[in-house]
């Protein structure tokens, strides 16, 4: 059951991520990106990370996609944006990097194990103490300093948005 769901979510996530890149209309890309986020949330649920799954939908599919759609609307999305460009130089470089990336990925998968080191928070341990509790107790004790740094980062984001978009006329 879990393996079937994993395969379905993973396949739909990869397919919709592919459609994000391929589709010419930026709004269609944004909608496929939302589908990708939902599939990722499904994968998080399968990993017993329900809180992260909820965050994935609330923050990514909710807030960040709203921002993306607004940015798409800020841009000129008329015919000239959809005509497509000839990116011969970029495409050839891209193909080289894709081949290199696949070689690297293949060599890693063949030589060493794909799964990383096992921490104390395995799926069973998380199931025992509860996902949100486990997440919170790590975030607010061990990762206290990064957590406080996030607030400064968000403050920088606020100031940046206001400075960029709120010019005095």
């Amino acid at each position, binding site marked *: 059951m879990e393996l079937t769901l994993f395969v379905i979510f993973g396949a739909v996530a990869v397919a919709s991520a592919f459609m994000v890149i391929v589709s010419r209309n930026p709004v269609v890309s944004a909608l496929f990106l939302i589908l990708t986020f939902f599939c990722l949330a499904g994968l998080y649920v399968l990993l017993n990370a329900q809180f992260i799954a909820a965050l994935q939908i609330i923050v990514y599919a909710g807030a960040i996609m*709203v921002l993306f759609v607004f940015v798409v609307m800020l841009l000129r999305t008329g015919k000239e944006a959809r005509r497509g460009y000839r990116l011969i130089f970029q495409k050839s470089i891209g193909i080289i990097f894709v081949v290199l990336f696949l070689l690297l990925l293949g060599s890693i998968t063949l030589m060493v194990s794909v799964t990383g080191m096992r921490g104390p928070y395995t799926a069973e341990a998380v199931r025992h103490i509860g996902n949100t509790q486990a997440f919170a107790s790590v975030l607010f004790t061990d990762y206290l300093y990064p*957590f406080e740094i996030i607030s400064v980062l968000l403050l920088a984001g606020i100031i940046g948005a206001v400075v960029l978009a709120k010019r005095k006329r």
Partner: protein
Amino acid sequence: MPIDFLPILILLILSALMSGGMVFLSHLFGRKEPNPSKLSPYECGIPPVGDARLRFSVKFFVVAMLFIIFDFEGVTIYPWAVIFRKLHLFGLVEMGVFLGVLLIGLVYIWRKGALQWD
């Protein structure tokens, strides 16, 4: 438990089937006799004025950006509240610093008038 999410999965499947089915069935059985006035966008009955793809004001971007930031703030309070009893005063101070820094941001955008539309 992932099994608790089974109703949500069923809901997702049902809604996908319903919306997809409606589009498919109307595509299958619907009559297709297009003419220019039928294909034009519907604007409450009057003839359409201009193109719908105009450029949006950058004010929407500010609103969306501030929404993300305060959405994230609200989302961090949730796990904090779950283990609040375990953290005691330490947790209160910790979250106080976090919210204090973001409060500076709120005061800043308030004073700059970014919450005003004009």
